[in-house]
């Protein structure tokens, strides 16, 4: 376990060999034959004249049609689940959060369980220096979400690989309790959503003085007195309380929080990206922190460049051309497309709806050759504010309902940040004269609060309070195809302020 790199032979293999290795794994996993039995692919492939056995390399694979989350939803709704899975029997199921419609249920096979366990161990080797202390408090979202099960891969990983980590999990509602444990046990790693971690840091700063005074009232020792005095004079930071030295953060853009996390916790944040559909291919930043390594041995990654996505928007019948990720030039942005070698549900050319940017395909300073990417945002209509996610079309419906104090002619949601926290600013161009502008603004803000979880999130300090502003003219942004873009992300949303 005290390895610097989990599997040096694979992770540091020169890229051309890695590309070859990945295609061998693709062939040997025989996923094409297994996948061809599933209604998720069967008819579409038959129509396209695909002969699964003949798909043996990336050049063959790239001729296959794409698969989407929508395809998966339809297949799950219309077919027997036993027909859908590509293995003899599913071991268990995880569910997606269902933000863009119904939940997708992802079957996990025995081999998947073992592969994820190894992938998890590898991720931690990438994120942690053993010398820093391999102990972790992991905040998860309860079952049936992936987040809960993934922690146990790390636990069993300790048993299977004779690891020397020390782990503790807590479900989101139990976070503050568990943090108290982490403080006492001097846990060194923290894994959660970045906004959640910042909330903790702010809570500490607010409550530290109070806590110290309370402690002194309870027990009037000199130590407690000194602590109370210190707390009222000195700014207390999370780093004074916790011993975290590293963290793994995922679920929303991490960069806006990066320096604040470093500053308040004194930890080194690593960004992670993954999805319930392809947990073994989760991407993670190494200690060099120059992009997230994409584990090429567990998947065949591609991307659809933005120009191709634009062509598709103009003409829905247009089939965009993807390029293999290992051939992408740094800076290229596009939709991430993945082919996995999973047992229970292999994804074949699966469009993730996530926009990524290629950072580099050169060998990283850490020695690894897995290409590095950055995650931008969703290419579909989902607005991601960490725990809070909604479809921009839900907001569109709300805008159309407006009427008590006035109506909306044009609108646009700007995604920005206020003290690092995600903030939605709703720009509205009213229809005609508005008699009571303040009442109209209040009504607009109430509409935003009606989106699931939004009100609770800003009241609890997880996001900034959304704001509505009336403007003379909303400058519409359109996609290349002329479609209105309702959600506009400002640069600050993804970057350090």
């Amino acid at each position, binding site marked *: 376990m005290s390895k610097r790199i989990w599997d040096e032979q694979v992770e540091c293999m020169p890229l051309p060999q890695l590309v070859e290795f990945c295609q061998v794994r693709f062939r040997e996993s025989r996923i094409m034959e297994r996948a061809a039995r599933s209604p998720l692919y069967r008819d579409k492939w038959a129509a396209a004249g695909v002969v699964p056995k003949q798909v043996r390399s990336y050049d063959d694979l790239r001729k296959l049609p794409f698969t989407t989350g929508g395809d998966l939803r339809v297949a799950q709704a219309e077919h027997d689940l036993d027909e859908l899975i590509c293995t003899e029997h599913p071991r268990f*199921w995880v*569910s997606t959060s269902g933000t863009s419609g119904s939940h997708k249920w992802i079957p996990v096979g025995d081999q998947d369980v073992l592969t994820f366990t190894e992938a998890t161990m590898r991720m931690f080797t990438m994120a942690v220096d053993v010398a820093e202390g391999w102990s972790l408090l992991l905040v998860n979202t*309860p079952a049936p*979400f992936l987040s809960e099960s993934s922690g146990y891969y790390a*636990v*069993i990983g300790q048993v299977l690989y004779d690891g020397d980590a020390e782990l503790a999990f807590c479900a989101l509602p139990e976070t503050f309790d*568990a943090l108290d444990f982490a403080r006492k*046990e001097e846990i060194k790693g923290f894994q959660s959503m970045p906004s959640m971690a910042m909330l903790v840091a702010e809570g500490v700063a607010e409550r530290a003085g109070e806590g110290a005074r309370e402690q002194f009232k309870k027990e009037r020792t000199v130590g407690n007195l000194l602590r109370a005095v210190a707390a009222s004079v000195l700014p207390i930071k999370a780093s004074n309380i916790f011993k975290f030295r590293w963290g793994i953060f995922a679920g929303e853009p991490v960069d806006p929080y990066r320096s604040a996390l470093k500053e308040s916790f004194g930890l080194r944040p690593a960004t992670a990206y993954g999805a319930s559909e392809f947990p073994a291919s989760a991407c993670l930043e190494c200690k060099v922190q120059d992009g997230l390594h994409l584990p090429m041995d567990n998947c065949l990654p591609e991307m659809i460049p933005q120009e191709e996505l634009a062509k598709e928007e103009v003409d829905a019948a247009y089939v965009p051309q993807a390029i293999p990720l290992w051939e992408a030039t740094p800076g290229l942005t596009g939709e991430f497309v993945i082919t996995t070698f999973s047992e229970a549900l292999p994804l074949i050319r699966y469009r993730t709806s996530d926009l990524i940017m290629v950072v580099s395909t050169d060998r990283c300073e850490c020695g690894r050759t897995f290409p590095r990417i950055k995650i931008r945002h969703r290419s579909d209509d989902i607005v991601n504010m960490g725990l809070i996610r909604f479809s921009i079309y839900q907001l569109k419906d709300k805008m159309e309902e407006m009427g008590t104090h006035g109506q909306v002619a044009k609108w646009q949601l700007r995604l920005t940040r206020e003290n690092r926290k995600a903030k939605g600013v709703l720009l509205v161009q009213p229809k005609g004269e508005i008699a009571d502008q303040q009442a109209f603004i209040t009504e607009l803000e109430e509409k935003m609060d009606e989106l699931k979880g939004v009100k609770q999130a800003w009241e609890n300090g997880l996001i900034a309070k959304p704001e509505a502003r009336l403007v003379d003219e909303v400058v519409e942004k359109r996609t290349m195809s002329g479609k209105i873009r309702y959600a506009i992300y400002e640069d600050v949303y993804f970057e350090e302020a």
Partner: protein
Amino acid sequence: MDKLNIALQPPGVEQLPLADLAQLGEQRLVEGKVIERAGTSSLYAKRWNRAGVEVKAVLSRSELAQLPFTSAADVIEVQKRSPMRQFPCAPAAVWFATDSQGESRKWIPYSKQDLVQYMGLLTRLERPTALKERDVILFVVPMAPRTTNAMPYLWIFTDILETKLKLEFVIGSMFLLGASNWPEFTLRRQPTVLVSRPSDALALVEHFAKAAGTSDAQPKELFNRLRAGIFFGEPLSPFSQAIQETYGLEPFDCYLSAEFPSLSAECSAHDGLHVWMDVSIPEIIPNEELAREKANPQHKPAAVFLDQAPAGLEGELVLTTFGEALPLVRYRTGDRVRVTGTEPCGCGMTHPRIAVQGRL
């Protein structure tokens, strides 16, 4: 990974004569140097020192019976006062915790070896409850950091690596009922076995009906294949009849605590839960002794070994376990139990049986 060792050894351990089991427990207490190891934990070190207990090799069960009891309050006190890292006797691979009791919860370390034992005990749950190949288990899981949160996942690994029953799990939490459609999904998978807290099972009745698009359908009408239920976390008896009526399943009571995943389970004879004598040394503090202690806190209550207790005896369950990261030494569980029998059970197993009546 090692075989799921002691929880499965020796073969046929579930049917060994009771006297042999008592001897096996004693042997593991001695050879495992349980007391010497426990003495390195902050939970025992100072208290034993104050009580004048000499930390030395304990050679028998009767010597064990002379050691002081340990309580939940001791755990909370020690965890509050001394650094957490002085608590485990061996490196912790994972920490679980109890529900919070007032302002505190107890954090319990598990070593890799302890996890393996937990997994081994899970396999033992499969026999008395007659699980079959390809059973589909709906597991309504409490949230982390509870020990029971780990149970379905450890069970998955156990079955992949060891028992190979090809069990399928659908895992859902009460917390996420509003944000997930797992009741609907459960209808599609048609489980054969339900594992949950009894009160959660009853609370779910309306959610399953709603998921099925009806207002009053009972789970027994919605889950045709549902055969058995394994219930943990609270006494089953107050809920048992309602669960049988609504779910139409055979309920099995199961007892475990965060401090030790003993997984004592009811068998098909439904005459108490088998307490595994080869992984613990169970004792009972009879009610009269508890009453005396209540009247006079200085009174040191006497306990009887479970295998020597008469049927019908009621009192507090006390456990000594052979764990690696935290062996429990005469740990007062705070659970009131009744001894239902120590003679061999109709199911063929010889481990003594108790009924768990609730918290003291």
